[in-house]
């Protein structure tokens, strides 16, 4: 068996660029990486919502959502919060260094299915990372969709990811709206102050022909779901992505299940109608 | 000793108290000689309590095993007490936990029971094999009486008691709110036969011995989890950053695991033998812990879990402490 057929053998990817989205002990750093092997670079295909196992040899791997859309080019973007051993090691990487990547894993947002619909993303904190490819994908194919609304918030301005991009998005005409918020009042902040679920009610999107996708801390998701229901969204119109501890990424190692669902294979993207049946999904 | 009815009656009384959440004791298991820890929630549950030489779990472990899950905002924690049946070793574990502030004395009700030692099922295995039928056992002076399918067999205790119990010098609770029944005369001298035998062996012999034993370890951590003194929220053996012990199962890492655990138990091990009894691979873990128990007692005259007011051994320092082994 060669390395290439072995799903556990990672590919090497060169870090082309890095920058910090947020600072502090749990800083979020974004990496733009390109596969070193030309063949891998060419054959790699992923869709918004999918993840990859990235890591550093000698330290380990972590499942991280791919935060770039394939429409952006032959590179991958990962936004990584500094948490444990692996993410600490990843944060040490600088342009020119290498990381390991294998994947892509999991299912994707059914963007084909959603054609002709209005797209609403509701993100909080690092939860914007898996939503970002949707935004980019829809922007690239804006003619296929009726509308794009982005709602995003974080605790403070320092916790906001993709700040500049999102500010730019507000200026961008093909997008009907982008709404930003922080939890606590800060000087110089001209947008909404308050929690994301509250902002959602403020924006008051119509459920008609709309798909709502939310990702963020569990507590935020809980209230966003409640509010979406209040706004008249049906379960089938709501999507979210889950994360659980993973080791293999291919449905073998056993740990990422939420009830009968393997997050790595059946997810990470789930329709709320499915998830509702699985009490463990919101544990 | 004490009869079952007295225990059950007292247990009922205790669980009826408003300030008591439940009482932890033992009840019959599902097959053979097995007995399982049992939570008496309501007075009528007490009818299921048993007390016999088959009660081989240290109930003090259940105090530290109780998980503290995050409470929803505004919900008050349940402040009711936990009642526990304690024998010598269970009570020593509680006492050690008290000195380590792992348990608040106000939060536990201890119902003391004298004990004449528990059976080591492994010793029973060959001569009195286990069957589906639930079997019973009782103490009768120096003997253990097995009651299997109505047939009674008397066995001298030396044949079947756990090694730890054979040298136990604390058959009566050292700390309890009330102790039922009559005290038992301790039967053992200060000795550690298993340890002494190994001590007399050459270095190579000892190395070979442990190599063979640790090689077999499957790293299920039953020893750690069954130990009343292993209650760290986050065991350093699980830590990944830094990884003190690799997850790889091999002689070297397994040895590191067992030695680290033994060292974390220095001056803390209460010699209950739970670790050894639960080991599915049959590793004689008692030997390694008892060696340290012996050293601590001989060098520092300290016995864990015997003084509720005492300072934990590892936290006590006396300029006169022996330190000749350092250099």
């Amino acid at each position, binding site marked *: 068996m060669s390395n290439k057929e072995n799903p556990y053998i990672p590919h090497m990817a060169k870090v082309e660029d890095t920058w910090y989205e947020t600072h502090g002990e749990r800083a979020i750093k974004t990496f733009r990486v390109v596969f070193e092997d030309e063949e891998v670079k060419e054959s790699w295909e992923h869709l918004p919502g999918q993840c990859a196992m990235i890591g550093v040899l000698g330290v380990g791997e972590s499942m991280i959502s791919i935060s770039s859309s394939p429409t952006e080019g032959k590179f991958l973007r990962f936004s990584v919060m500094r948490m444990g051993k692996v993410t600490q090691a990843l944060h040490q990487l600088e342009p020119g260094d290498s990381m390991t990547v294998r994947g892509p894993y999991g299912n994707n947002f059914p963007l084909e299915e959603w054609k002709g619909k209005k797209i609403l993303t509701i993100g909080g904190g690092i939860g914007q990372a898996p939503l970002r490819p949707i935004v980019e994908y829809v922007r690239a194919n804006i003619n296929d969709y009726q509308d794009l609304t982005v709602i995003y918030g974080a605790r403070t301005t320092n916790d906001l990811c993709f700040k500049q991009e999102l500010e730019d998005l507000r200026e961008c005409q093909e997008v009907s709206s982008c709404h930003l918020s922080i939890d606590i009042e800060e000087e110089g902040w001209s947008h909404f102050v308050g929690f994301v679920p509250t902002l959602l009610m403020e924006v008051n999107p119509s459920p008609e022909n709309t798909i709502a996708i939310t990702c963020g801390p569990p507590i935020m998701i809980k209230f966003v779901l409640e509010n979406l229901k209040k706004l008249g969204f049906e379960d089938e119109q709501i999507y979210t992505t889950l994360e659980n501890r993973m080791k293999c990424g291919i449905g073998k190692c056993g740990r990422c299940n939420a009830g009968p669902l393997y997050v790595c294979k059946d997810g990470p993207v789930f329709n709320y109608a499915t998830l509702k049946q699985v009490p463990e999904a919101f544990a | 000793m004490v009869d079952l009815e007295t225990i059950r009656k007292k247990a009922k009384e205790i669980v009826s108290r408003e300030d008591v959440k439940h009482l932890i004791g033992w009840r019959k298991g599902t097959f053979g000689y097995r007995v399982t820890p049992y939570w008496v929630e309501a007075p009528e549950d007490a009818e299921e309590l048993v007390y016999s030489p088959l009660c081989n779990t240290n109930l003090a472990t259940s105090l530290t095993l109780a998980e503290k899950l*995050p*409470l929803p905002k505004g919900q008050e*924690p349940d402040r009711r007490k936990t009642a526990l049946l304690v024998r010598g070793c269970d009570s020593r574990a509680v006492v050690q936990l008290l000195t380590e502030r792992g348990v608040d004395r106000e939060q536990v009700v201890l119902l003391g029971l004298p004990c004449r030692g528990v059976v080591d099922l492994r010793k029973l295995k060959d001569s009195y094999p286990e069957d589906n039928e639930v079997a019973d056992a009782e103490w009768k002076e120096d003997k253990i009486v097995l009651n299997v399918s109505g047939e009674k067999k008397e066995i001298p205790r030396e044949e079947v008691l756990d090694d730890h119990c054979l040298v136990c010098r604390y058959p009566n609770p050292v700390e309890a709110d009330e102790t039922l029944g009559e005290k038992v005369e301790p039967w053992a001298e200060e000795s550690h036969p298993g340890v002494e035998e190994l001590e007399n062996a050459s270095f190579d012999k000892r190395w070979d011995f442990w190599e063979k034993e640790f090689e077999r370890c499957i790293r299920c951590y039953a020893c750690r989890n069954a130990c009343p003194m292993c209650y760290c*929220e986050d065991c350093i053996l699980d830590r990944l950053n830094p990884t003190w012990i690799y997850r790889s199962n091999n002689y070297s890492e397994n040895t590191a695991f067992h030695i680290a655990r033994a060292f*974390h138990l220095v001056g803390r091990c209460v010699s209950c033998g739970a670790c050894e009894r639960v080991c599915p691979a049959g590793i004689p873990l008692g030997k390694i812990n008892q060696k340290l128990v012996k050293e601590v007692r001989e060098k520092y005259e300290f016995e864990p879990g015997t003084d509720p007011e005492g300072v934990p051994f590892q*936290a006590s*320092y006396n300029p006169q402490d022996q330190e000749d082994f350092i250099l």
Partner: protein
Amino acid sequence: MSEKPRVGVYVCHCGINIAATVNVEEVVEFASRLPGVTVVRNYAYMCSDPGQQLVREDIENENLNRIVVASCSPRMHEITFRRTLQDAGLNPYYLEMANIREHCSWVHPDSEEATPKAKKLVSAAVSKARMLEPLEEKEVDSERTAMVIGGGIAGIQSALDIADAGYQVYLVEKSPSVGGRMAQLDKTFPTLDCSACIMTPKMVDVANHPNIELMTYSEVEEVNGFIGNFEVKVRKKARYVDIDKCNGCGECADNCRVKNRIPNEFDANVGKRSAIYLPFPQAVPAKFTVDPDHCLYLTKGKCGKGPKCQEVCGTGAIDFEQQDEEVEVKVGAIIVATGFDTFDPSNKPEYGYQDYPNVITGLEMERLVAASGPTGGELLIGEGENARKPKKVAFIQCVGSRDASVGNEYCSRVCCMYTAKQAHLIKEKIPDAEVTVYYMDVRAFGKGFEEFYDRVRREGIRYIRGNPSEIFKKDDKLIVKVEDTLTATPREDEADLVVLAVGLEPRQDARGVIDLLRLSQTSDRFFMEAHPKLYPVDTSTDGVFLAGCAQGPKDIPDTVAQAKGAAASAMIPLSRGKVKVEAQTAEVNEATCRGCGFCTEVCPYSAIELKTINWFGHEVNVAEVNEALCKGCGTCSAACLSNSIQPRSFRDSQIMPQIAALGVKS
């Protein structure tokens, strides 16, 4: 903090101290290949100004954010280089030192061993440096008061200096009077001025100084806190005499029922006193004290029809109801000047000190020749009718000094000279006496010492080089058995009186003081200074200083000099009014701490306490570090079973890579 480390490595030659055994070029080349290393330089003396300038420039020009200096022990120059970093705008705790001198070049004779080791040490330091984090230095207010423990000449001098500078001083003395050992001496070498004459004015000054609170007959019970903020509990022992009322007339002592029956400690037990006593006539304060161990009333509850002392006291000062009193004071600095004991010659039974009354110690001799002593300065041997002046006096040097068999390997520094002085005094008092000094070497190293030694030899004192091995009795004469090693002649010399020049030892109760103040001892059991050369009056506990013989044997001028030094050091926090607290303190991980309290028990600085926190609705105990008290020693970390408390700059995540770089599995 998550920026990529850019490490600068600076390898010092230390002249030839390092460069002679470590191939610096090779180390530089090696270091340049280490991960994260941006700049590597070497320089003859990194600690010199141009050396430090190199670091400053690189930090600026190369954007360095971690510095490794491979030179000497951090005890030497860590502070120097921290300042360098600070000057260059970098957090000073981004510094790591690799000790390639004491740990490497000085202990390895050749380059083949030293160079690879230096590389490993540098590699380890770089690995740790990459993981360093910035720390903040804090300051807290300091009390502007000091305490001096011990009222001998060292303590008195320290107290006077601090008090003269305008700060309040508490002077604590265990015995009823200040004065200490110096007050017991007759004349002082080599100038032969009267000890009491130069001592008493200082004692009086101490008693009268407005900034000194004299606490005699008192003992320190407990010391808490830290530099600038010590809380000291002092127990004032009951004297059973109201010192406000006592006028020191002495009627009480004259009328005591056990008068002249109790050995007087001040007279090295050669004189006797009453149960109520003034240790010596010039005692300060000149107040009487009841000895609770010998007073009939206090020991037996009965003294005739009633205590006679009470009866005769004109001022009604005697109060048997008096109780010990505990006072608590707050001080910014503490000076330990607890002095010494003399060697007990019973530990050398061959000299027959216990068997023969005419074998005495140097200190006993001191009291016998002193004008204020029990004999009024008359030197007599024998009792009653047989009392006579000794004609043959032998001095034996090095009794209990330079002697591994009694555990005292050090030279006591004063015995040669006090023996010379005492020999001189005897010759003065008994001109026809035959005085012989048996010695191993005469150490006359101080100012005027050699001249004095010359003088006494010319006075006819016989110096025999040879250390006696035995004293025994032959027909009522003491025989000193010795070999004259210069002529290789074994001798058995007769003597009427043998004076043992006993050496100096740490106080018997020194251990208690050490525990109270968390100090250390050197192997000779004297108190350990922070550094034998650079911090000779400081101790391992910040804010606690040493003066006098507590630190090691010394003569009076040295003691006074050290006392003044200790006073000056103690005044630093007092005058600043602020003290820096350790930045490398321990930190608790509340998520994993199980609240067992092992750390609180083992913390030598009492810096950790348990607190109850709300953990998702549950009340749980966790440890909490008082950062003002914590010294970052790491004892807590060693005791913690769940690895939940770690000193900053010495976290596992920092030292594990360091250890790994040394080639040990991580």
